[in-house]
């Protein structure tokens, strides 16, 4: 796979009260961003443990985003 074709998959853990709401707002505002993100709602970014982040990398994530 050449550099140009590389399409990363990013797993985003989003806090229900802020970052998830922000991601919703991005939609309401029709802000466009690359469709490489897969979002997982968490009730608090503090819920996102190292186990989960490592699991995402283990399963093939090219990046992990924790928003909270």
């Amino acid at each position, binding site marked *: 796979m050449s550099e140009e074709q590389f399409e990363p*998959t990013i*797993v985003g853990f989003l806090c*229900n009260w802020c970052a*998830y*709401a922000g*991601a*919703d707002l*991005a*939609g*309401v505002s*029709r*802000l*466009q*961003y*690359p*469709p*490489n*993100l*897969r*979002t*997982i*709602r*968490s*009730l*608090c970014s*503090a*819920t*996102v*443990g190292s*186990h*989960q982040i490592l*699991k*995402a990398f283990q*399963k*093939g*994530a090219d990046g992990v985003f924790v928003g909270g």
Partner: protein
Amino acid sequence: MTGNQKEEIRIGVFICDCGSNIAGYLTMQELVDYARTLPNVVFVQENLYTCSESGINEIKQAIPTHNLNRVVVASCTPRTHEPLFQSACEEAALNPYLFEMANIRDQCSWVHMREREKGTERAKHQIAMAVAKAARLRELSRIELGISHRAVVIGGGISGMSAAMALGNMGYEVDLVEKQEKLGGLLNSLNIVLPANEPSSRLLHDLAARISANDKIIVHTSSEVTKAEGYVGNYVVTIREKSAENRVKAGVIIVAIGARALKPEGLFGYNGKSVITHLELEALLKQGAPAAKNVVIVQCVGSRCAERTYCSRICCMTAVKNSILLKEADSRNKVTILYRDMMMYGVENEDMFRKSKELGVRYVAYDPAKLPQVGEDFVKVYHQRMGKEISIPAELVVLSTPLVAQEDAANVSSMLKVPLNENGFFLEGHVKLKPLDFATDGVYLCGSARFPATIREAVSQGLGAASRAAIVLSKEALFTSGIVADINTETCCGCLGCVDVCPYGAIRFVEEKEICQVNKVLCKGCGGCAATCPSESAKLDGFSSEQIYAQIEQAFAS
């Protein structure tokens, strides 16, 4: 869990077009076909609007018809629509926690409007993730809690009295707890209140009389709240009245402990005789105007400085009010106000300011870098416009000091587990949207305990806090959320990691078993414990690691 695993998982997926909001940007048929291939999915339906009455009815019909025991809706955001779909499940006799959403509008079709193919690909993954999580959901229950239909108001100043009166009038029993011997707080020390132009005592006596005539309100004077245990709807509050201690049950607690005027010891030659505070001037004015012919009032004494950066906000209008009263007592009195900025917000205050100038009150701005000097019978100040120091005769100097937090604010704060700001005032739940609530349910805030308030503001906040409290008191019962933490008693080693991180004090260490245990009523479902627990014994129902691992796996499914 074991019971659920044996049962065949039958998931119904409802995919919403949201008119053209989703269908206009994603290929719906592809999503439907894809959803059919997912494990455990036995039914897939596309709706024009899943949230419409017909969409909801389709969910309610499909559950019994196809024997669904899990429902996934792929549509907008759970932040707005989850409760609606959950109640549809509930109406079809499906536990509402066996429901999951995939956000394919706000976080997909709307943000990938020009990339149909890749957007559709993302939507597929989001649906697969939701389906995988749904398969691992389990029934959760909301706990029903009884309520004590009774309130405790801490602080019997004007805001606490207003709150107690309002709740009493609604028919709720109220314990109004005042530290001093009588109700009224700071209002007891005031003279005339403007713009009403009436003695504060009249206002106070009127309210106190109505409170004592209301048999729902029990007034505890010379009393303090020493302990508060429990949670919203079910607090047990210990009130120490003189030497006796009483425990009362209460559904809500209102914090109305007010504030106190700063005594400016060591500032501007304060001596309580010829250099006094406004509260001391008000006491003199109550007995008739003071004999001084030349009065200088200094603003911002002990406020807007390094030690106390805030503006106390009510001192400007107090100074203007008292200058008017001094002038009206004898028009030959010379009154000078030394100020930094005059904060006269609102219609009446600006009128009052204008009136004081018409009466001949003199205003001189001073530079905080060159503070006025108070002498024996004069005040020296650098006049910025004249560019030189002037000396103003003064037999009486009045210092406008700020209201500062009550000395026991920290005690009340730790007792009720509600926060204070850097100046010791209480911090509301949200600076704009929850001005009278705390983050802790069932505890409310009003008056100068939050920030220096005028009488009118204290009254409206008191009435507002009473209304907020009545939302709880008027209910028959409360239900907790089903999304709460749970600690596996078999694997917990009692390391106390979760106890330290829990912001709600909901986890306690059970010494005899050496394990930690969650109080499901206090738990707010933040999951801090689950993230901290080294053995994954603590988990958040509805957001467990197992469920999230399943979601992660599907994020990469092809």
